């Protein structure tokens, strides 16, 4: 099963306990290459914890993570990113006192140069990445904000910037933690469209509360409650599952 080339990310019995309480308890995820896979579930279900485990920001209590056929369970978070598994954060993660351009460029800098330990060189060597940065910035509709500090952007634009920064790394797989949270209708439509476009040649695993976005974008949905997988399948399957309706969608789908 693990050798299946179709599968880009696989977990086996992924578990994280906080003082005996299993925030994530024995999760088996199987994400197919080139798909958009949604991870949904009520608050506190363990979705963000899952992301932290997959990107090694947290060390699993037990279980295994395999990315592109390679066991990454004991890797450092920076190395996981270098393998092409890059995340966004639930709370928008930008570099606040750097400009929009600098935010995106720092990611390109990593992609193109690997490490940047050269403290004796002028940073004007980074100017060659400006053009590509501006393309990425234009892609998420931030061209008018190029020289703004990230901290000055409205919330929706910050999320857009974060996605542009993540995309700069050309990751094979993207983990998005609630990409549309706190956004207005227009921003949501824009981001959903962007996710669809970027997913054309990569895999996306996203946590999302907005069910219309989930229904619209996802090929596969995994429902998590109390750290366990409750159901899995496409939107029709999952939304007709009785357990799911009771545990998650509850009265809304009565």
């Amino acid at each position, binding site marked *: 099963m693990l050798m299946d080339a179709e599968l880009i990310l696989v977990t086996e019995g992924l578990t994280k306990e906080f003082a005996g309480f299993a925030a994530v308890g024995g999760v088996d995820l199987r994400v197919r290459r080139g798909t958009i896979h949604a991870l949904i579930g009520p608050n506190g279900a363990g979705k963000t914890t899952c992301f932290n485990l997959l*990107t090694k*920001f947290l060390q699993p209590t037990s279980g295994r993570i395999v990315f592109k056929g390679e066991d990454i369970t004991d890797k*450092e*978070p*920076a*190395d996981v*990113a*270098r393998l092409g598994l*890059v*995340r966004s*954060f639930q709370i928008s*993660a*930008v*570099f*606040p*006192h*750097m*400009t929009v*351009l*600098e935010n995106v*460029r*720092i*990611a390109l*800098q*990593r*992609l193109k*140069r690997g*490490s*940047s*330990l*050269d*403290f*004796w*060189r*002028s*940073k004007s*060597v*980074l*100017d060659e990445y*400006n*053009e590509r940065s*501006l*393309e990425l*910035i*234009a892609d998420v*509709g931030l*061209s*008018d904000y*190029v*020289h703004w500090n990230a901290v000055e952007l409205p919330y929706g634009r910050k999320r857009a910037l974060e996605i542009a*920064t993540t995309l700069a*790394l050309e990751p094979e797989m993207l983990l998005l933690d609630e990409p549309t949270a706190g956004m207005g209708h227009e921003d949501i439509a824009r981001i959903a469209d962007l996710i669809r476009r970027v997913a054309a040649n990569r895999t996306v695993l996203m946590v999302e509360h907005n069910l219309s976005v989930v229904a619209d974008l996802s090929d596969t949905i995994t429902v998590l409650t109390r750290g366990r997988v409750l159901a899995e399948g496409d939107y029709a399957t999952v939304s007709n599952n009785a357990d799911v309706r009771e545990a998650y969608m509850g009265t809304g789908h009565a």
Partner: protein
Amino acid sequence: MDTTPSLAVTGSRQPSALRRNGDMIFFAIMIVGLIVAPFFTYPLFLMQAMCFALFACAFNLLIGYVGLLSFGHALYFGWASYVCAYAAKGWGLTPELAILLGTLTAAVLGLVAGSLAIRRQGIYFAMITLALAQMMYFVALRAKFTGGEDGIQAVPRGYLFGLIDLRNTTAMYIVVLVIFLAGFFLIYRIIHSPFGEVLKAIRENEPRAISLGYRTERYKLIAFVLSASLAGLAGSTKAITLQIASLTDVNWPMSGEVVLMTLVGGLGTIFGPVVGAFVILFMQFKLSVVGEWVLVIQGVIFVTCVLLFRRGIVGEIAALFKR
């Protein structure tokens, strides 16, 4: 969305270009100032101030540009000062070799202390740096070569490259000025290098920097070693200039003083620590008549800065210009 992107960066109102011009003007003022100053005030005072200014700049590299508060920077300043003084006096090394040896000592100490401290954040980081510095203070107190309470006195200034007699004040002044400027420009370069960009990202949001694939601990450790080395360069130069290395240089109030200088001048500004060092030393110099009260006055300044002028002297002035 269909703008022509490249115009946006090549436009003349690029903010970083403006800032660079501002920096250049300040550089010019600072260099001219330091060249003419000895005609108006005591060269020895100026040399001492430049050593402390370099020390504060080195400290600022960590706190201002990486966001790491070291509370033990006296360790590098003081130990470099001892080693340099001993090398010059005990082994009769030429001043440039003695200074180099002192600086290397600080680099090694920085590597050891940095490796231990860098994994911790915030107050824990500060406590580890302080604890290590205090340990090494006691070593300095007990060790024979440091001269204990007396320190190492009457350090010969010697002959630079075996040729230039540094007992000549003008020669000594030029050496200190060159060392100070070299250190200052190195720090400027570090901050404005590809490496410096990553440091800035780490200061701004370390988890995000990690998630982009940066192994942030390496960057922090290198920054720590650079900062320690430059503090050591300052301490070594001070030992040759003032011809003394003593417990004062290696004890914790010295670590506090460099925090004060940086804060008063402007944390995270290029020129702030220089201004802060000159202001604090000038004050100590002028107020030496009131004795211990100078500590109280310093305390008041510290609190005033923290409460009212968060950005420090240079930071506040820069903010005025931005408006």
